[in-house]
């Protein structure tokens, strides 16, 4: 394994770790609530942060500060800095990572309702990042148990389970989703709806993984170390736990890291179609759907930051998955 690949994987891991941390501690990282609107300041550009003061022709470095903004032209949504008063950025005060007293700070600007884009991005990560973990947790949990039992015990149970997986795998997922989105009552919050959809999706998604695990178990159980365990009388459960599962683990770990992106992507696709997270709740997917017009892209490119977050997350997961696949058993075979 080349060191460069290792350091790239470590970097990817660090980025991913920070993203998850910021989602978990969203109320602390985000300066504002994802709901608080400031209708007087729609589509404000990112607040510029200043580090220097020009005084008498000399430049002096000071702690970072910002100016207040005014909407100079409502029609073209042009903003202007009010340079009369400086507002220093305070770190780790007011129970926040950073905060400015007296003036609003919008690191990534605001949306059409004047909501802080950065805060929404941080809160949106909660849905987008954890959807994958929950979905993968459920589908892989069921898949590994069912696949191992099916493969090792075999017989009627194996046949029954395999027919069941075939039925499940032949369900048209997209139509199921559309139906579900309609069937789930309107009263529940969109985040709950979405969780439901993901849970249901992963109850369907286990089938493919279970079949792969079954195949691996079928080949593993013919290996002589399993026969040796049978010869000294280990129980079925003991053989599964000690001989089979440890040999399935490397595939499972790699496969998990490589399938989380699928859930993240499906979240953004569904939200974009209006089946997932709906306003005012926030996810990276529905934030990105707001950026789907040329005007927004040309005048407010910072609206793409949710898309960048999705790309970065998926890239990191793929890099880590590839790295694990290459390193997890360097010398076992």
């Amino acid at each position: 394994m080349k060191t460069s690949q290792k350091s790239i994987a470590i970097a990817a891991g660090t980025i991913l770790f920070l993203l998850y941390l910021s989602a978990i501690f969203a109320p602390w990282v985000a300066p504002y609530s994802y709901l608080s609107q400031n209708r007087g300041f729609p589509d404000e550009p990112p607040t510029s942060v200043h580090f220097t003061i020009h005084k008498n022709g000399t430049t002096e470095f000071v702690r970072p500060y910002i100016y207040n903004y005014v909407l100079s032209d409502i029609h073209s949504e042009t903003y202007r800095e009010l340079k009369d008063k400086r507002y220093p950025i305070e770190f780790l005060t007011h129970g926040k990572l950073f905060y400015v007293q007296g003036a609003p700070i919008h690191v990534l600007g605001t949306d059409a309702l004047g909501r802080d884009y950065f805060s929404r991005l941080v809160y949106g990560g909660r849905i987008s990042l954890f959807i994958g973990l929950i979905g993968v947790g459920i589908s892989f949990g069921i898949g590994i148990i069912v696949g191992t039992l099916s493969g090792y015990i075999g017989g009627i149970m194996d046949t029954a389970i395999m027919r069941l997986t075939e039925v499940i795998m032949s369900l048209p997922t997209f139509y199921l989703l559309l139906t579900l989105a309609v069937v789930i009552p309107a009263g529940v919050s969109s985040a709950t709806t979405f969780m439901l959809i993901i849970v249901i999706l992963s109850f369907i998604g286990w089938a493919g993984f279970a079949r792969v695990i079954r195949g691996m178990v079928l080949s593993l159980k013919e290996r002589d170390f399993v026969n040796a365990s049978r010869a000294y009388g280990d129980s079925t459960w003991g053989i599964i736990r000690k001989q089979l599962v440890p040999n399935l683990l490397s595939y499972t770990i790699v496969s998990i890291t490589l399938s989380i992106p699928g859930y993240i992507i499906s979240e953004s696709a569904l939200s974009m179609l209006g089946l997932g997270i709906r306003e005012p709740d926030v996810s990276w997917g529905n934030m990105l759907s707001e950026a789907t017009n040329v005007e927004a892209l040309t005048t407010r490119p910072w609206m793409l930051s949710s898309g960048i977050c999705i790309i970065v997350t998926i890239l990191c997961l793929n890099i880590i998955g590839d790295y694990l696949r290459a390193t997890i058993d360097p010398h076992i075979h």
Partner: protein
Amino acid sequence: MSLIRIQDLKVYYTGHGLFRKQSVTKAVDGVSLFVNDHETLGLVGESGSGKSTLGRAALLLIKPTAGSILFDGVDIVNAAVHKNRPAMKKFRREAQIVFQDPYGSLNPRMKVGKIIADPLRVHGVRGRKVLKEKALRLLELVGLPASAYDTYPYAFSGGQRQRISIARALSIGPRFIVADEPVSSLDISIQAQLLNLFKEIQEKEGVSYLFISHDLRTVAFIAHRVAVMYLGRIMELAQTKELITGPLHPYTKLLLSSIPSKDRRTTDQKEQANGHEHGCVFYPRCGLAKDICMDISPDLKEVSPGHSVACHLY
């Protein structure tokens, strides 16, 4: 009394084909033999003769189609069917196996110490210290350094892996070990070392072996008695010396002459067996065949004390 007595054991495989009629492969076809305490019974035959199947069926790793296996006087085929737990537990403790493939027979994700101690744990030995002590003693017995305890199997060569397998089989103090071609995949020099280890262990621990090999020389070195197997049947069974010096069956003679001939291929064997239902299985290759050989399969009969042969010539 013999430690293990196999009687009329049959292992048949039924093949299913979409466009073919069902075919039955008789891997083991009515084999009877016994192994005494502290004794090594060699089992030779070319590949495809069913010797490994017999070894595995003797440990119930493959379910026999018919026949009985008496271990220490108890019918364990029956015990397995009727879920007689105490009898099975005793059998699983006292009968063990060492496999041919040194790479497939050790779990790559388990440290050697754990591999060796696992049978003890399964049979109720508790306590980390006790288990480690026993594992270290076993490592010493099979001639491996104590440092092997904390290592994964990948670090070991074929011969060393076989030693680990032997240690695992010995851990719960068995009385009977099926050695399924344990040295066939190793270098000649390593083979000799391991054969000596098997002998040494038999002297120290008093175990019995069913020693399977395709190499008559290996078996002659280690076995007290030798059974020659061909296409699922025992052709000849005698004291090692007697078999080597005075073979009776034409097949044994062929093996001893050890001239590789082109008709020793397994495909030939199977083809011959398929078109040949009733008579002696060796008939198609036998140079001394008579008319009777084509129609009637000879039973294994004792021609002199301790020397049995399945051939119409005797």
